[in-house]
């Protein structure tokens, strides 16, 4: 049943991702009436599938890469809905919905078979650690997309080309707000996620956990994240330089993600 819900979610993400294109790029508002319910349905079925799957297999904890990516997809889908309702723009769906669909398609059609029975998995703390960090990654991705949209709109305005009033690009101030607010949302998520992970690791693995490259990279990511928010708030960094900064932090996030493969302690195995 879980896989069925997940496949329905993939289908609905796909429909929403396609419908959002004419709605945003071709000024066809009727397509919004298809994109929004499809995205809402996708997020709902995705949530049900993920909750069922995690509860049945891993005691509510995403263990393998596919499940973690799927959860990130769910967060991105939900973020799209929040942005569409709050800022009345579906433009973010052009990027977020295909990514959500792609992140969901693998677990939907090639589910992982890992079954772990590790006592730590029975606690909710690890779930919180993973969920909060994924939320921070999603926020960073949204901030990056918003910065790109800002740059495109800024260039259009500077080139002084005529465009319809109902353009797919949100106003500069809106994209700027989205970029900053998503970063501000991501910071407590990342901080709390890392803190929870550190406390759990300290209790179960001991101080050697903190010499792990994955953990060191995570700390660097957190520092850069804080620096980015400080620079943005303090100097009002926008446009091209904001993209470079967001892009740099995003690369660090990818490095942290990839470091899972190198880490000897950041694994779901008993120490």
């Amino acid at each position: 049943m879980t896989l069925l819900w997940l496949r329905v979610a993939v289908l609905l993400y796909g429909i929403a991702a396609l419908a959002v294109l004419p709605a945003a790029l071709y000024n066809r508002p009727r397509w919004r009436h298809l994109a929004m319910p499809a995205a809402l349905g996708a997020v709902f079925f995705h949530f049900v599938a993920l909750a069922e799957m995690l509860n049945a297999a891993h005691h509510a904890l995403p263990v393998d890469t596919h499940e973690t990516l799927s959860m990130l997809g769910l967060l991105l889908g939900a973020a799209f809905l929040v942005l569409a309702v709050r800022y009345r723009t579906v433009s973010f769906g052009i990027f977020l919905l295909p990514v959500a669909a792609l992140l969901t398609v693998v677990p939907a059609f090639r589910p992982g078979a890992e079954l772990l029975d590790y006592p730590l998995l029975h606690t909710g703390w690890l779930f919180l650690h993973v969920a909060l960090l994924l939320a921070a990654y999603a926020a960073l991705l949204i901030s990056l997309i918003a910065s790109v949209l800002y740059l495109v709109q800024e260039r259009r305005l500077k080139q002084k080309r005529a465009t319809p009033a109902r353009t797919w690009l949100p106003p500069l101030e809106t994209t700027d707000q989205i970029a900053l607010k998503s970063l501000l949302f991501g910071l407590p998520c990342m901080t709390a996620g890392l803190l929870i992970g550190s406390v759990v690791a300290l209790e179960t693995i001991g101080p050697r956990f903190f010499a792990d490259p994955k953990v060191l990279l995570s700390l660097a990511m957190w520092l850069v994240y804080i620096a980015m928010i400080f620079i943005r708030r303090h100097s009002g960094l926008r446009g091209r330089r904001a993209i470079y900064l967001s892009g740099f932090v995003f690369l660090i996030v990818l490095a942290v993600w990839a470091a899972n493969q190198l880490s000897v302690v950041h694994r779901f195995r008993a120490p």
Partner: protein
Amino acid sequence: MSEQTKSGSLLLVGVNHTTAPLEVRERLAIPVARLADATRSLAGQPGIREALILSTCNRVELLTVTESPDSTDGAEAATALSFLENFLNIPTAAVTPHLYTLREHEAIRHLFRVASSLDSMVVGEPQILGQVKESWNIAREVGAISSTLDPLLQRAFAVAKRVRTETQIGSSSVSIASVAAELARKIFGSLASKTILLVGAGKMSDLAARHLIQQGATTLLVSNRTEARAEKIADALRTPTITTGVIPFAQLHEQTHRADIIITSTGAGQIFSLDNSRALVHRRKNRPVFFIDIAVPRDVNPAVNKLEGCFVYDIDDLQQVAQDNRTLRSREAETAESIVQIEADRYGERLAQAPATEAIKQLQSSAEATREAELARTAQRLANLNAPLTPEQQTAIEHLTRSLTNKLLHPQIMALRGTDPKRRGEDD
């Protein structure tokens, strides 16, 4: 195509900005306060059953349903002219050369084009639909429209809505002031709580400021070499919801960072150089600032546009955008024209079929009445002979007679459906 309403003929007589100069249009214009009286008076003219008057600054049109379907254009136009002569005291000779007369399908198409803003001076402008609706409301209130014009007007509104939804005919601004407001919205989104700085005084800058205030800007600062003039402008634009203030011209650069939109029109050389604009951006912590430079020579160094966060549009830029938008609108207008054509044809066909549908209904009901009477008579005769029909026989006979009636009527119904109502009228 030629179709007539059930018991009348649709006629539209009028002048617009393409057929009549302003001197004629202003004499014909009927103020909203007098529109109800005028509509009532037109509907009361001999031979007119329904009437609606559309009076705007660009057109005066009388849409009527006449009682006589076979009257000539000349007679109907004469009625309209006599109404104008009596109501507005205008000699017919002054109006006749500018008048156009449209009948039936052409009148329907014209009405759809007007409501969809395809016949407007600025194609795609949104006000005309509201004006048509106002005329329709007035005509309904005075009881001047009923079974023919009421559905026609409602269809016109639906067509206008379809045109707006399916094309981008009204989605871009074509005047300098509205282009500036549209650009401001693309930068700031909502203009609520935004501050406008007016540097210098001029009609165009005043117009642009008013347009931005209409869009939601709440604070207006004015700076002018003559402070008294600045205060006069600030006073003129102050309302309970708009806060205004004056910045002494000597302190302009110290205060400019307070403004999000700067409309400048002094023509006194480059007041905003690259250096002081860079300082401005720094003081605003890179928050965007929009320069609307309508001065000649320009007040803002064009290179300021290259600074991050600065958007500079001079008068030529605004005009170019307006021109590009006009081109965009005319492309969209082609699509809109085809929508209107399809809708007018469809409505015309429906109108043309209305008399045939009525005749078919009458024919069927008459045949059904005859069939039922004959059945009852036969049943009575059989009952008198003590040979009543069994329920099965009754059903069989019912089926037989109904089938016979339908088959006998079929060629006539087909003929009615395929007959041109006008020709049928002549034949009758």
